[in-house]
């Protein structure tokens, strides 16, 4: 029996099974009408049905043989596929499985190597690491990387880079690399042939600033399969990302280094200037004091000398503020913890300012002694009183209140000056910050006073806070550790 289509044969079978019974019924009807009038129609119908069933049975027996053959052949095919009884098919399956295994290994190796490439290293060290990673992924030690342009020849000079295991620096680019980079360049992963032979080339990156390729000689080897080309493109993308990141990282680091260098230069300058001022200031102050002691000096000269002493003292205090600022920067400020009375210190500091202003000092509550560094607290007070004088109208009073508060002393310095707006108040403790109004009212300020004051107060386990509004004066409150100075227990 010819091996025609299965479903065609089923259709023909059904047709053959149905047509004869229909013909029989038609014939019987004709007969009952003309010849067999006396015959019972029921008997005729039964005869027709039985005949049709017999006919269908005969046909079923005939056709089921060929259908069974078809099913058997399908079953046998399935069994052969399953058990690999066919040597050719089995070999193909194995080859396919091996290829898939290798591809899986390469992809997972690629992921691993991509994360292992040290992008925080110098870019010129990252490229050899990248080549080594590609060699491990591809299991092929002939891969190299040609950097054609990097956007920064210092961080990443153009050249041919080998793997870390080759232990050699980049070699100059040759015609081979230039040709490989441009040949068939519309394909990011490609096999090319030319005067230098056959090569497999992968574009590492194709941005404006960075151009590089990975390449390996491919002479006599099979053309890369579509799957291998896909993998190569993946390698190129990962390598490009790693290289871009390392370049960015190096640039950010070099910018941070530059900022640190500038900050160090600034700190050195500050230290240098203050240091150079320290010794002559000591001499000027000492000489002026010595001359003042001369009883025969005329009155006018004595007045000038007192001005020199006062200005030298003022300069000495400003230098001290800069010293504090530089020591705060270096984190090496260590104030003493001495016991002393605050009111005499405030009076001395106010006197040193020589401000021609009404000054009101009021002391409330039980007597307390501060536990702090008197020299440092004097520096803070000098800065606050100097500010109060500088930023308030001539003739307006300056007030200082002292009173105990929860185991500490609160020292409040008030002026009736121009005050400050909220943003100035918030930035008042920043180093070198001076508001526009401050520059107008006192052009000679350094912007270090309040910065140093806060640093000193914190170092003495105290605090400083400013309350101010534009036009309503400023109140600065210091809190400093203190102890009651009664004789209880003594």
């Amino acid at each position: 029996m010819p091996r025609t289509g299965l479903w065609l044969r089923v259709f023909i079978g059904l047709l053959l099974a149905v047509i004869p019974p229909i013909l029989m019924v038609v014939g019987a009807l004709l007969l009952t009408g003309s010849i067999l009038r006396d015959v019972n129609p029921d008997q005729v119908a039964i005869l027709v049905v039985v005949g049709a069933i017999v006919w269908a049975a005969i046909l079923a027996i005939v056709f089921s043989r060929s259908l069974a053959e078809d099913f058997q052949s399908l079953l046998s095919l399935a069994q052969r596929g399953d058990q690999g009884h066919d040597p050719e098919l089995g070999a193909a399956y194995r080859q396919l499985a091996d290829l898939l295994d290798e591809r899986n290994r390469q992809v997972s190796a690629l992921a691993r190597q991509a994360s292992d490439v040290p992008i925080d290293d110098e870019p010129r060290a990252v490229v050899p690491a990248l080549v080594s990673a590609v060699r491990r992924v591809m299991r092929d030690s002939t891969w190299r990387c040609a950097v054609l342009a990097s956007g920064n020849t210092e961080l990443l000079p153009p050249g041919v880079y080998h793997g870390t295991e080759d232990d050699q620096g980049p070699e100059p680019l040759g015609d081979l690399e230039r040709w490989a980079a441009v040949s068939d360049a519309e394909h990011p992963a490609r096999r090319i042939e030319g005067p230098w032979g056959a090569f497999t080339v992968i574009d590492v990156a194709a941005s404006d600033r960075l151009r590089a390729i990975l390449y390996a000689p491919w002479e006599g080897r099979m053309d890369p399969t579509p799957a291998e080309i896909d993998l190569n493109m993946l390698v190129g993308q990962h390598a490009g990302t790693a290289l871009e990141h390392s370049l960015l990282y190096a640039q950010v680091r070099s910018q941070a280094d530059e900022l640190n260098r500038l900050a160090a230069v600034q700190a050195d300058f500050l230290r240098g200037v203050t240091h150079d001022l320290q010794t002559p200031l000591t001499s000027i102050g000492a000489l002026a004091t010595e001359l003042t002691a001369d009883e025969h000096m005329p009155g006018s000269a004595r007045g000038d000398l007192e001005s020199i002493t006062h200005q030298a003292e003022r300069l000495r205090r400003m230098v001290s503020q800069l010293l504090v600022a530089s020591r705060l920067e270096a984190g090496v400020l260590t104030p003493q913890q001495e016991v002393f009375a605050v009111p005499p210190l405030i009076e001395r500091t106010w006197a040193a300012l020589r401000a021609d202003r009404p000054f009101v000092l009021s002391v409330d509550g039980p007597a307390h002694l501060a536990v702090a560094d008197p020299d440092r607290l004097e520096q803070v007070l000098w800065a606050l009183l100097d500010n109060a004088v500088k930023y308030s109208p001539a003739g307006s009073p300056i007030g200082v209140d002292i009173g105990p508060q929860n185991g500490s002393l609160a020292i409040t310095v008030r002026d009736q000056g121009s005050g400050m707006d909220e943003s100035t108040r918030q930035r008042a403790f920043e180093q070198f910050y001076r508001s526009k109004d401050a520059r107008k009212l006192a052009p000679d300020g350094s912007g270090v006073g309040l910065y140093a004051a806060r640093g000193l107060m914190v170092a003495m386990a105290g605090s400083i806070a400013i309350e101010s509004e534009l036009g309503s004066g400023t109140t600065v409150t210091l809190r400093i550790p203190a102890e009651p100075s009664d004789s209880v227990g003594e």
Partner: protein
Amino acid sequence: MLPPVRPAVLLVDDDLTLLSVLSRRVARAGYEIRTASSGSAALKQLEGSWPALMVVDLMMPGMDGFELCRRVKQLADLPIIVLSAVDASEAKVSALELYAEDYVTKPFDPDELVARIQRVLRRASIGSPQISLDGGDVEVDLASRRLSTPSGTHQLTPTEARLLQVLAASVDRVVPTDELLDRVWTDADGADPSYLWVTVRRLRRKLEADPDRPRYLLTERGIGYRLISGTIASQRA
């Protein structure tokens, strides 16, 4: 009649103006002055005779003040005051505490230097930089201002260390309040008895197991204070 012996002070600074100004000011306070403008010149001077005290500038070309102090202390326990200008490495200044009795930061008032010279010489005349109480249970190293007690180690302030040193020089005897104020504080400090009360209170917190029932630092009401060496006290008992 022989003139009274004036303590000699060796001033070492490379700034000749400052050297001359300081020389005049310190001489006016009654000291014999010797000067040197470098570390090596100072060492040469010391070959001849020893002063009572040396004032050294930290920043000098060639041998700096730190090196000079180190070499001097190898030879003898000469009291030293260091004049320090700004130095980022405050650690160096801290290390100087090993060698220097005191240090003054530039720019300074020469009167302040004279006050410090007087204080250091007074302390140096008191003697021992080590105090040991109660058979070694309590020890004070005045050079590093460290106090060791069975409960732990405490850092003393310069004033607390001076107070202990003065009291230890008359251990087990009462030192009157006025004498303590005079020897522990300078005139410039403007100290009154309340300074002493608060300083003693704070010192007891470091020294005593129970500051409310002091065992070592006792108050002699209306007179002054007494430091008790526990061993002697127990012998007396």
